[in-house]
């Protein structure tokens, strides 16, 4: 290509950097000022927070327990309905659609209230109040997540190419054999990221259960606010506790995703892009056949501003090939 006729003036790098730093400083300043105002010029009572973190522990355990139970039993139901939605037959497919839409189309909170009403009317097995409430909350989360997980499984099963199923049949595998040996192993790699998101959302949604007096994490935090009056401190503690659960979880799962990655399957490449005025930089991790990262490849594509499209002719590609986990850092 010919040289660019018109070169718009590029701002100096330092100016671009200054913009970013300024934004971060501004956000932090606003946040600090906000907290400061809320706590009436007293600042945060860090000592109080340290002293009372332990009293959130019982609620934390209940939260984890109820989330894990309802998530995994919801997974069984969700898989069933998700699979039904992939069938050709109208009746099971219709039933599954009604199930999915009912739970996805109404607020979880309303579902919780409805179940609460139901279980108060018809107390199954004359349970004591505590267990009845726990069961109500457990059912509400399980049914709700089953609707969402059904959609995830449906999408995962349907994303396996039709040719794969045909090939499985062509070597004589029956339906369930093809399901087990070909469809499921491929679908799993597609559903894991959305299933992780779903776990995190159901964990967060479990905070609603305080409303029916289940003694989970949020309930314990509220009790603490009544006792000490340190509302902001307590809810910051609460938020940090939820973050301490959700962030490591998504990190751990994405580690396993990378570990069990197969070339050509699932979310194949991680693409970190950095776009400047004159070029776009793509970075792709390169994985060995055993799933571990073996290097990074960077492609820098200058943009032809006149034509408003990437200028592939002048693309430069560079690679860093290393072994070990260090190279997972960005090269810049």
């Amino acid at each position, binding site marked *: 290509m010919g040289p660019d006729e018109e070169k718009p003036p590029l701002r100096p790098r330092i100016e671009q950097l200054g913009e970013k730093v300024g934004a971060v400083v501004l956000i932090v300043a606003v946040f600090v000022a906000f907290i400061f105002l809320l706590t009436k010029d007293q600042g945060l009572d860090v000592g109080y927070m340290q002293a009372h973190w332990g009293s959130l522990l019982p609620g934390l355990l209940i939260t984890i327990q109820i989330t894990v139970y309802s998530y995994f039993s919801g997974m069984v139901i969700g898989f069933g309905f998700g699979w039904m939605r992939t069938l050709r037959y109208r009746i099971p497919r219709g039933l599954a659609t009604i199930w999915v839409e009912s739970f996805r189309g109404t607020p979880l909170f309303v579902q919780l209230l409805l179940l609460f009403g139901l279980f108060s009317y018809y107390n199954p097995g004359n349970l004591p109040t505590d267990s009845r409430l726990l069961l109500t909350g457990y059912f509400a989360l399980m049914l709700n997540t089953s609707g969402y997980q059904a959609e995830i499984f449906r999408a995962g099963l349907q994303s396996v190419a039709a040719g794969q199923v045909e090939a499985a049949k062509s*070597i004589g595998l*029956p339906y369930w054999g093809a399901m087990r*040996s070909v469809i499921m192993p491929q679908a799993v790699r597609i559903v894991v990221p959305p299933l992780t998101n779903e776990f995190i959302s159901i964990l967060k949604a479990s905070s609603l259960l305080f409303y029916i007096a289940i003694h989970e994490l949020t309930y314990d935090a509220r009790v603490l606010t009544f006792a000490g009056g340190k509302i902001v401190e307590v809810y910051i503690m609460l938020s940090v506790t939820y973050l301490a659960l959700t962030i490591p979880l998504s990190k751990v799962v994405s580690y396993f995703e990378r570990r069990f990655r*197969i070339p*050509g399957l699932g979310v194949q490449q991680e693409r970190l892009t950095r776009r400047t005025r004159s070029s776009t930089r793509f970075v792709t991790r390169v994985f060995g*056949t055993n799933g571990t990262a073996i290097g990074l490849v960077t492609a820098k594509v200058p943009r032809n501003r006149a034509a408003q499209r990437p200028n592939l002719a002048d693309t430069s590609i560079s690679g860093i090939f290393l072994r070990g986990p260090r190279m997972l850092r960005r090269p810049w």
Partner: protein
Amino acid sequence: MVIGPSGSGKSTLLRCINLLVLPDKGAVYLEGLQVNRPDIRPEWVRQQVGMVFQQFNLFAHLTALDNVTLGLRKVLGVDPATAATRGRVLLSRVGLGHKADAYPAELSGGQQQRVAIARALAMDPKAVLFDEPTSALDPEYIKEVLDVMTGLARDGMTMIVVTHEMSFAKNVSKRVVFMDDGAVIEEGTPEEVLLHPRHERAKAFMSKILV
């Protein structure tokens, strides 16, 4: 060999033979036995009749070796060690002994198609169906696949091939069938059908593709 214009029913014919599509009428015979009957399981028929697809359709989550041995292990119940040994022999036969541990995404189109042929052969089929095996390949890979198929034909394997590779059809096939509009219009030796077609539509087709 089955030839004919697009949409003439060639692929459907192949899919009817191994019962991937159940024929509405007519009979499919395998060594004299009619197999499209309610009392014969289609899985059993597909086990006897291998198939190679236009888009290869290798199992994307399995290595080349596992692709070849999956049927042995899951359908025939062969133990993994024996299956692996046989799988390696088959891969060497298609010239890919060194690629046993590669995943399909790491293989070229021609290599993938050769793995697909090995996968079909693993079930020790009585016949192998090829559905345009070279149509999705880059030109430089076509020859390696045709060479494997020619070798198979020399070894006496029964093959039904849908193809647009006319010189291959002329040199390798014993019988050529020309299809149009869902029906067989001409059949005979390659000489008769490819060089001296009698039917108008066959003549028109041959003149366009030039043998």
